[in-house]
């Protein structure tokens, strides 16, 4: 038996291989066959056409708690929306609708109806939905503020067009233009302030898509509490994401050393070392926004209130240094300049002096110490020789 096995070993191996490949093929075929096709509405569920038969009618409303809930869907807008183009059916979200009459509405108001409906979004948008759970909006909602934005307040599910590239997931350029207006639905006064800022004006008037919109600073979905200490303490790094980017800043001729010059100075040094150790603790040392503004960020050379002008900057200084009364105090801060023979020459020449003075002095010291070591070595060797000769 053993001999036969040894003699036919190679043939057995081949047979085994063929059998194995066949079994693998069978298994793969079986595992592929089950239906993984696109979700289709069940036979007893109404199609979009059925729904629209009624719901495209203009002016349809149903009273909930005495307030009208608008029921009209614009078929054109819906089919142009991302849900329309991706063939999401009405009943994919409105899962409780199986025909007419519709089930009793339990919500107490149209707002309440939205709040009941929005968790549906997580079926497909799990990632975004979970991010929202950490957001300031969700915190407010959980605290009982029903005005707090939910998914559908920013993204009308019946009209929302595609915002991100389907493959890369990156925000489409055109989508950025609409962001501030979306936030403005609830934060209209902040929007007005932003619109007049250097960033907001560029976006809303020139259509510049490279300036920050709301979400670039506040985040999207997981929008954090902007009044928190950690948000304030990390502001310099937030601004630096764009303001240290050569490619971006080149277009405006803006310096990219704003962060390094900030960190090199009193305020920045303090904030940097403080932030590293206690990111959650409050500090009264200024970050970018304390001088440049929050939503009302202006060009420094704005003739009205630009902080390139000493009288305007002094006002900013006085927020923390009320005893600062002389305009020359403002020069204590180098306004993000690197000292040069033209700008802050005194600082430049002091630095230059030490750049030469330190190596000269230390070099001389090192040189002398080295010769001393050499002499000691020579003397010791001579002594040892002297001893061995005796």
């Amino acid at each position, binding site marked *: 038996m053993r001999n036969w096995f040894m003699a036919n070993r190679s043939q057995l191996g081949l047979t085994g291989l063929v059998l194995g490949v066949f079994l693998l093929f069978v298994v793969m075929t079986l595992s592929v066959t089950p239906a993984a096709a696109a979700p289709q509405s069940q036979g007893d569920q109404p199609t979009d056409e059925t729904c629209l*038969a009624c719901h*495209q*009618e*203009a*002016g*349809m409303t149903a009273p909930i708690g005495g307030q009208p*809930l608008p*029921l*009209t*869907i*614009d078929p054109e807008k819906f089919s142009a929306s991302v849900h329309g183009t991706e063939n999401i059916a009405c009943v994919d979200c409105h899962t409780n609708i199986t025909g007419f*009459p519709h089930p009793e509405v339990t919500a107490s108001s*149209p707002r309440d109806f939205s709040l009941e409906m929005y968790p549906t979004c997580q079926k497909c948008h799990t990632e975004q939905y979970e991010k929202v759970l950490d957001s300031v909006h969700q915190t407010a909602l959980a605290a009982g503020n029903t005005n707090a934005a939910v998914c*559908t*307040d920013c993204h*009308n*599910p*019946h*009209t929302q067009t595609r915002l991100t590239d389907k493959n890369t997931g990156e925000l489409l350029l055109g989508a950025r233009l609409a962001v501030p207006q979306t936030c*403005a639905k*609830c*934060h*209209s*006064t*902040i929007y007005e302030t932003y619109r007049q800022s250097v960033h907001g004006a560029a976006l809303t008037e020139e259509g510049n898509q490279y300036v920050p919109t709301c979400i670039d600073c506040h985040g999207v979905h997981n929008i954090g509490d902007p009044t928190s200490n950690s948000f304030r303490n990390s502001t310099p790094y937030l601004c630096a994401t764009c303001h240290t980017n050569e490619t971006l800043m080149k277009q405006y001729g803006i310096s990219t050393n704003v962060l390094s010059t900030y*960190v090199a*100075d009193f305020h920045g040094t303090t904030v*940097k*070392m403080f932030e*590293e*150790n*206690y990111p959650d603790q409050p500090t*009264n*040392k200024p970050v970018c926004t*304390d001088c440049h503004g*929050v939503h009302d960020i202006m060009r420094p050379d704005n003739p009205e209130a630009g902080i390139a002008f000493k009288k305007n900057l002094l006002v900013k200084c006085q927020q*923390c*240094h009320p*005893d*600062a009364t002389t305009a*020359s*105090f403002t*020069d*204590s*801060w180098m306004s993000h300049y690197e000292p040069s023979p033209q700008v*802050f020459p005194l*600082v430049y020449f*002091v*630095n230059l*002096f*030490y750049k030469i*003075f330190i190596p000269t*002095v*230390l070099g001389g010291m*090192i040189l002398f*110490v080295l*010769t*001393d070591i050499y*002499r*000691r070595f020579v003397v010791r060797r001579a002594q040892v020789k002297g001893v061995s000769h005796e």
Partner: protein
Amino acid sequence: MSETVTRTYERFPLARRIEHLIMLLSFTTLALTGLPQKFPSSNLSIAFVYVLGGIENLRAIHHFAAVVMMLGTAWHILVFGYLGYVRRTRLTMLPTLQDMKDGWQALMYNIGRAKAPPQMGRYTFEEKMEYWAFAWGAIIMGVTGFMMWNPLSTTKFLPGEVIPAAKAAHGGEALLAVLAIIIWHMYGVHIKRFNKAMFTGKISEEEMLHEHPLELADIKAGMADRPVDSATLRKRQRIYLPIAAVLALFMLLGVYGFVNAESTALTTIERQVPTVVVFVPQTPTPAPTQTPTLPATETPLPIPSPTGAQPTADSTPSTPAVASALTWDNSIGALFQAKCTACHGAGALGGLNLSTYADAMKGGASGPVIVPGDGANSLLVTRQQAGGHPGQLTPEEIAEVIEWIDAGALEK
């Protein structure tokens, strides 16, 4: 012979050694708490700041050590005055031309260009260099430190630019001082030979012979001390002590002013937190459906009739073939109200409003839906009989509607 070897001389009295210790401790503290501020981005700095409990603590320690060093310097000035005026000791620390010659000779000797090392007195050129470098450093650090500590006061008299310039000089000088201490001081008194004189106060005769032969010669010749008779001493003390007291007062006031000239630059006031009204909606919270805008009747019902038989408006109402008890008021109106008016109510989907008898008889965009006397050909019935209409009537209900229409579709 052995007696001369073991003989020791007093090099530094206790007061000088305490001075040295104070300077040693304050200098080290200043260096350790200052350099992290010069290199704030280094992880080592950040870790050190963390160990000291934060940047504010670190600065407080730095300022405390600075005050200690200033007081130590003030004391040193008073002692210098006492020794110079009252005791009239030889001013052995003053740099002379001979020091330069000694330095040159030492260098030449080291590289083998001179036969012998220089013969030096109480303080060698190395020691004098370090002393005066420290004095120079103390002045620079004191002046620039004052400017940074009191920028508001400083900029009342000087341009604002001196503050960052002071910072640059403070940092540069600090780096120079620390590295010079490491290279020059460490080598000179710790590595070359561990010189314990600053701690024990004593120096052996052999060490004196090697390092301070001229002083040793002076001591042996009795020229090192200049004894003062007690009467003269007392006289000079009477003159010096009031002057020293006034000087001390001024220096103490100076240190006090240094520390307390102003407060807002360093401590600053509590941050004024700007307040913003956050929720200012443009409209009531946006709804995920369009707010109604179009007039109710403009959109035609797109569903084609399944039968193709369109009853027309001019269809002649036939006489009721069957008598029926059913009327709009007693049953049909309520039926339509329950099943149809969600769409064909006030919203009048497809132009059809079934909430009142008059509107129902008018029909919709496709024409009349109720042809009195002809239930089977009324659009309402044919649409319902095809099935699948939203708000589908049951067969029994359809039968009732047919019966009602056939009987003339009466209101009452």
